[in-house]
């Protein structure tokens, strides 16, 4: 499964990819390879993290056409929406991405991740809300594995809040797919 997480620098995009790769490879017993964009585009502009998750060892490390795209900014959405293959899943932040271009061959889901995080007290948790949403919608990694991936990857004093953010995103996703 080829996954691209995208947004602007500072949103925790790379961290999101790291959490997903860590969950899949350390706790779900799969193979995962994370690569990230380096350079000027990682500072404020559109930035992205690429994760390849597979049952077998990953040979080709990069992603050309993802099967899952997550966009947490308008700029990242516009930049990357052309890439996903037909039938892909695309996840966006409801308030930060207003799709001008709609692709009919992909499945779109959105969550007000940043708003939910702000209601929790700080928008810094928005990426983890999105990771929870991703977990619910895509079934690529298990919720259990995602929870295990958080310790050591977020500051200890914010661990409980991060788990809460993950669960909120996950519940939002499960409720959305029930309907």
């Amino acid at each position: 499964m080829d996954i691209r997480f995208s947004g602007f620098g500072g949103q925790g995009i790379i961290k999101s990819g790291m959490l997903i790769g860590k969950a899949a490879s350390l706790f779900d017993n799969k193979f995962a390879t994370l690569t990230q964009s380096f350079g000027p585009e990682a500072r404020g502009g559109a930035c992205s993290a690429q994760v390849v998750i597979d049952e077998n060892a990953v040979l080709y490390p990069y992603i050309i056409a993802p099967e899952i795209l997550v966009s947490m900014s308008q700029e990242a959405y516009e930049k990357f929406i052309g890439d996903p293959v037909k039938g892909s899943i695309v996840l966006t932040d409801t308030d930060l991405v207003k799709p001008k271009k709609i692709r009919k061959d992909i499945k779109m889901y959105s969550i007000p991740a940043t708003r939910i995080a702000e209601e929790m007290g700080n928008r810094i948790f928005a990426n983890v809300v999105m990771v929870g949403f991703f977990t619910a919608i895509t079934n690529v990694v298990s919720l259990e594995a995602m929870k295990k991936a958080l310790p050591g990857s977020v500051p200890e004093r914010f661990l409980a809040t991060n788990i809460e953010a993950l669960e909120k995103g996950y519940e939002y996703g499960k409720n959305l797919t029930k309907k």
Partner: protein
Amino acid sequence: MKADPIGVATGNHFIDGDHACGEGAIAAGCRFLAGYPITPSTEVAERIAERFPKVGGMFIQMEDEIASMAAIIGAAWGGPKVMTVTSGPGFSLMMENIGLAVMLETPCVVVNVQRGGPSTGLPPLTAQADMMQARWGSHGDYEIIALCPNSPQECFDLTITAFNLAETWRVPVMFMMDECVGHMTEKVVIPEADQIEIVPRNFYKGKKEDYRPFNFSGSGEIAPMIKAGEGYNIHITGLTHDERGYPALDAEAQDKNVRHLVDKILKNEEKIRLLEEDQIDDAEVIVISYGITSRVSQKAVQDARAAGIKVGTIRLIVVWPFPEKLIRKLASKVKAFIVPEINLGQISLEVERYAAGKAITIHVPHAGGWVHDPNDILKAIKKGVK
């Protein structure tokens, strides 16, 4: 000897190749690092700088890479295992002192996380174009050892191997990562310390007045070392020298000294050799690759085999010394060698040289900045079997 548990971060980690290299160095017993930050290698030094205070190591951020290389040579003669970390431009600056390390037979590891060049080139993007520089970037006749990892796990495992080889042969070992492997994050399993085999420094134990820092007898033995400051009255110099280390400036001394530097590596190529072979027994063509390119070419190999082509693979883990005898032997059995690499022709020319016209060599070049399209390698395989 087993690794010291204090330096071994046992467990399952999701870290990139740079961090894994740093952990490998600490596990191998490295306790002195001198370096100057440069993309894409900085994270190796960052990891070690953070971890060293807890294991009793010393990291110095030097004024440049010339000084970094000089510092690790000096430190090694004080006793500890040493390393420096850099990328292309810094590697160029280190060349003069790498020659000094070779001449003084100083065990050390030089990490080069390769990026596109020449000059400042492509700082954040990958290449494998420093392979020839690793071999002979300094002046004069000499041989070194160079390794190429293809995953973060190997950045850990093979950094330990690099230290072990450096100590065994008293030679600088070039740890030739590439940006892709360095910045790629994957699962890295760090075993328990008692599962990690370490080659300790071979310190001299005899009478002080009998000590010789070098052994040019041709016996194949490598002289033990001492710790500077422990009362040995020795001399070491970059000048051509005798076994006592004193300058000996004539053709006879030059022959002994330089032949020793070259022979201790080339005559032991099969002992130092580290490679993976797959399905070469009935192969019509063999893909030879190293580093990240070995993974990308595996995809092409899978497709070729699915199409019924008899294709074998050799993945070079130790690239220098080059497995000359193996290539000579295989050249009379196969139609072609396919050599993809992220440069415009370096290791492929070595393969061609030892194939000596018995098999054709098809180079699949890439100028850097990205990895190969596996289809380009597949096309070359198809061309090779025709």
